[in-house]
């Protein structure tokens, strides 16, 4: 029996450092290669020594698939390919391929230039790593090698986010990466067809949440921002350069226009501005509405939102600032936060999930006094708001995706263990399928069972159909097919039995039986024959019986001949071939029971 084995190196009962190893049909695939925001040591990257203790990874992996450009899904890529060593193909969508190196470079700068770390990947490594990337289009079936094929589906989490369907022969799995089941202001909703994979590996960030309507959240967000700036406060919105930033910009832009506000909105220079360019060029990956109107008005050209300069941090008066990164763990957003945190009229809005260990995570948990690196302290007096804008599927969405693609097994990753249990139970009871939630380093083996494909000769198949004629087949009635399965090497063929025997040079052994019964009955032998004929017709109505005047009766292929003088004992010769053994012996039974047969 075939099996699929899965080992998460990251994202097993955890969020961050997504990296899942899969063996399917003898192919080894790495799904995502992310880093963990919560760690600054070795735990930051997946433990690739699990794959091999020595040497490069190339010979151990058939391909690597990256679902989207967030660093917790691609942050370890240059480390893996250039420092550990991997030269095989890396697959990702076009927008991911475009944006990923920029985020990696940004990550590298923060780590090396700001924190002064050495022994980290270089800009050159990012470049040579990206050379190994092959870009894929949505729904395009990519043949990685003769047996392994992959296909991307729209995931709607960020620009270019994709779910991947991986197939080897009849075995298949779907890896969702991060996905979003409700369309938002700039991206469409995830979609997948009924591909019935053996395994669905899904994220479960919001395993226990069922979120209220998007509109309410948006109104809430706008009200909070508006109230704060009206009172003269400053609003900091830490975001990742791409994704939520664009959605919130569109939201604030249209609100500012509607309410005729002139309080400045800034976004951190460089990254986000460039990011908007990407959105303009990859508009076909955004939502339907933006696609339909982009000729008249490109939604990503903002009037009210201006680039931010560090000097503005000290500016008096209200303002709204979008700054990267999103979890307040480094960079500009942290710098702005440090300045604004001690004033209570200010506000920070966390629009997404924060990984444990980051400043964002701490303040969301109500920490009022933060310890910084050089033994400094920051008092958190500003109002801390959490708005769940990150585009992950909630419990309802996850269940919906499962019902769309109809997997035979589900595996939960990218979520918290306790929350997973809830969802796992729900999946098992509602769909009646197995659900797994392995921890990092824990291997799960899933057995798969498939039908065996066979070539059937068209004439044999059509012969079966010809029995029913042109009538619509009765779905309650079983259609029976009889054929010979011929196995030559790996080739399986189902053909007409006689043809099969001929092909294999087998001569059928012709076995015939002739039994003689003596019947003690007077009268002409024809009369007895007729009696036998009537008997056969009555007892075996579904077989064609025939009576000919020379005293012979045929029931299907069984021949019955009666002979003997009028007033003598009659001998009844019954002849049939081994093929008709059932019918022959049945007829013998009937005649013995119904006729005055002489028994020795």
């Amino acid at each position, binding site marked *: 029996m075939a099996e699929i084995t899965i080992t998460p190196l990251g994202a097993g009962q955890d969020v961050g450092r997504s990296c899942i190893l899969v063996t399917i049909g003898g192919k080894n695939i790495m799904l995502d290669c992310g880093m963990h925001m919560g760690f600054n040591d070795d735990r930051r990257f997946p433990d690739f020594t699990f794959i091999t203790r020595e040497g490069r990874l190339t010979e151990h992996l058939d391909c690597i698939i990256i679902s989207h450009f967030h660093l917790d899904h691609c942050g370890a890529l240059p480390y893996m390919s250039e420092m550990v060593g991997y030269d095989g193909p890396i697959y990702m969508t076009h927008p991911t391929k475009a944006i990923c190196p920029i985020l990696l470079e940004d990550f590298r700068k923060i780590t090396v230039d700001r924190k002064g770390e050495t022994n980290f990947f270089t800009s050159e490594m990012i470049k040579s790593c990206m050379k190994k990337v092959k870009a894929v289009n949505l*729904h395009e079936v990519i043949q990685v090698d003769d047996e392994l094929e992959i296909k991307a589906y729209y995931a709607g989490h960020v620009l270019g986010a994709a779910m991947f369907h991986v197939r080897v022969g009849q075995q298949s799995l779907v890896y969702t990466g991060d996905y979003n089941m409700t369309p938002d202001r700039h991206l469409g909703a995830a979609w997948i067809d009924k591909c019935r994979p053996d395994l669905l590996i899904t994220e479960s960030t919001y395993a226990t949440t069922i979120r209220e309507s998007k509109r309410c959240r948006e109104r809430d967000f706008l009200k909070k921002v508006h109230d704060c700036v009206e009172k003269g406060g400053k609003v900091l919105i830490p975001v990742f350069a791409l994704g939520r930033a664009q959605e919130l910009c569109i939201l604030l832009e249209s609100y500012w226009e509607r309410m005729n506000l002139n309080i400045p909105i800034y976004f951190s220079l460089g990254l986000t501005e460039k990011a908007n360019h990407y959105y*303009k060029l990859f508009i076909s990956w955004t939502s339907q509405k933006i696609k339909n109107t982009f000729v008249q008005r490109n939604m990503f050209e903002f009037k009210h939102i201006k680039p931010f300069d560090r000097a503005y941090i000290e500016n008096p008066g209200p303002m709204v600032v979008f700054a990267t990164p999103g979890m307040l763990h480094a960079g500009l957003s942290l710098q702005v936060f440090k300045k604004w945190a001690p004033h209570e009229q200010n506000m920070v809005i966390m629009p997404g999930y924060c990984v444990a260990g980051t400043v964002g995570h701490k303040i969301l948990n109500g920490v009022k006094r933060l310890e910084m690196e050089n033994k400094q302290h920051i008092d958190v007096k500003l109002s801390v708001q959490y708005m769940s804008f990150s585009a992950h599927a909630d419990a309802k969405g996850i269940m919906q995706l499962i019902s769309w693609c109809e997997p035979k097994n589900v595996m939960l990753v990218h979520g918290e263990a306790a929350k997973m249990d809830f969802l796992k139970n729900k999946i098992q009871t509602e769909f009646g399928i197995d659900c797994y939630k392995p921890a990092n380093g824990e291997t799960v083996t899933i057995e798969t069972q498939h*039908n065996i494909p066979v070539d059937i000769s068209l004439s044999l198949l059509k012969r079966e159909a010809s029995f029913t004629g042109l009538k619509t087949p009765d779905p309650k009635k079983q259609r029976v097919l*009889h054929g010979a399965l011929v196995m030559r090497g790996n080739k399986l063929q189902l053909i007409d039995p006689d043809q099969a025997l001929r092909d294999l*040079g087998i001569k059928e052994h*012709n*076995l015939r*039986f002739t039994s*003689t019964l003596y019947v003690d009955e007077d009268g002409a032998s024809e009369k007895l024959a007729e009696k036998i004929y009537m008997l056969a017709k009555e007892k075996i109505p579904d077989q064609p019986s025939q009576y000919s005047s020379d005293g012979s009766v045929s029931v299907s292929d069984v021949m019955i001949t009666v002979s003997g003088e009028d007033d003598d004992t009659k001998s009844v010769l019954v002849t049939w071939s081994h093929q008709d053994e059932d019918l022959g012996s049945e007829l013998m039974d009937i005649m013995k029971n119904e006729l005055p047969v002489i028994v*020795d």
Partner: protein
Amino acid sequence: MKLVCLSNNPSKPCFVLYFKGVTLMLDCGLDLTQILSFLPLPLVCGSRLSQLSDWLLATEKFGKQGEELSKELKECSGRVFVNGVLEFSPPETRIVDLSQVDVILLSNSSCMLALPYITEYTGFKGSIYCTDPTLQIGKQYMKEMVTYVDRVPRTKACSLWKNDNIIKSLPLPLRDAINPKVWKKCYTLQDIESCLSRVQVVGFNEKKNIFGALTATSCSSGYSLGSCNWVIHSDYEKICYVSGSSTLTTHPKPIDQAPLRHSDVLIMSSLTQTPLTNPDSMIGEFCVNAAATIKNGGNVLVPCYPSGVTYDLFECLSGHLDSCGLSTVPMYFISPVSDSTLAYSNIFGEWLSSSKQSKVYLPEPPFPHAELVSLGRLRHYKNIHDMQNDFKCPCIVFTGHPSLRMGDVIHFIELWGKSATNTIIFTEPDFPYLEALGPFQPLQMRVCYRPIDTSLSFSQANKLVKDLRPQHLVVAESYTVPPVNVSQRPDLVISSESSPITYKQGEVITLPVKRKFECIELDPSLAALLVPVEIRPGSAISMVNASLVVKDNKYVLEPLSGPEMKKTRTGNKPVKPKSYIFGSLNTKVFVDTLSKQGITDIKLEDSDDGSIIHLPNDDTLIQVEQGSTHIMCGGDETVRIKIRDTLLQCLQKL
């Protein structure tokens, strides 16, 4: 398997393919050449075109009827044109039932303009597949055409000239018009919306399942943005449909040949319409001619479509003008859809050549015309009314329609036609340029014909066929003989080792593909029941008696289920699958086995072809021959069954 050709023009193809019970339409091209018989739609009243005289010979030839007729026909420089609503010649659909068409596969944006005629008001209820760029650009082509037609309120439909007794006496080319009675008025914007709302977009190499019976896959054809060839697969057969394809390097993603290899049938259409010219040198001469005209103080008029090669013209011409020091010469692009086609060209990075694609990663717009637009060197307008204020001469104007029968191009010919310093350069190969110019004669303007057709040339097509090695090749009849005007060029034909099957409009051809196998799946529980018998090393056989389940055109064999097995002829006994026995009987072994069963009184006699075994105690005679055994016994079934089972032990059984 049958193929019906519905189009008269192999460059605007339309086929219907019947395969495995599925009816597929391949492309939906609209042949526009017949609109050359009509008078152009002028933009302003009182233009020269509206003052043309009636056809003088009308009354002379047809008497009273001729007076009516003379209102329909106008004469210009010895040619006669129809002065009525433009009419289009849709594919010949009377030989197919459109409501039975399951799927339409579209290859590129220039092969789909007849789509509304097929899908609207016809009972068509199938699905339509094409790539996203094909859909978006094709939509712009349709919108442009409809806008051009709607803009000029000519309402008079002419039909008198089509009468059988009149048309045969009309001058050429009217006399040769094919089926003018089925020509139709242009469709509307609503028709376009409703028609295209049925389209489902596909990506390259996306496998589209059609009723479980077939899969259709598009693969890049290198001809225009999102253009593709189609591979139609069943489990055992492969049909490739090659439409507009190009092996040249222009802006689209290059042609993908690998999926087209080793097909059972290769259907080819849309080869070059200008076999005598080379597109590379034509584009060079185009630039040189344009620059020369500008240097002489003249204006350049380029009748063009709003997408496709036009993008390359912008790129090459602006580069050439730079090298000539003419960077300040403005280029105007006038089309009702110019803003859309330029905008769309920027967002289809995935569908472009790798050099253009890599720009998107920077991120920069893939085409240089985006920069030309932002610098103001290329200005685009919806129509000439919008451009009046910033119109500077000398200049280069790109505008439609290449047929010169509609659109803003008509105005520019009238404006610039009188001066020999101006030049009109034809680059689109769809229309014979001299006929296109007919209603504008006499014309002083310089005329250049530099057709740029990037489709496969005959030599490229022959090379492609050689590489692809199809079992059978199907091409247009016209591709098997040299073009009419160059009959001395026998190289301008499709030649393959076996002579190709040909098609022409209205023909139904039977494709020589015989299906032999279908795919069926064995349920694992059924497979577990099978006991294969090895006949010789590597070959085994097992008889299968199973229940056939057919769902979505997929066949699955499952074990016979319980209730059905009981339902036999008389009642309780299950139907035993038919069994096969084979091999020759070794009489000695048989006799030994019989005696082990307690039958001891055995007499063995040799006969002519075998032997006869006599069991006097059991009143039984067994006749054994090569490959056959006949057991003759009395009425005692227990004896017979004992002998039978003993015999079966000595033979091989399935």
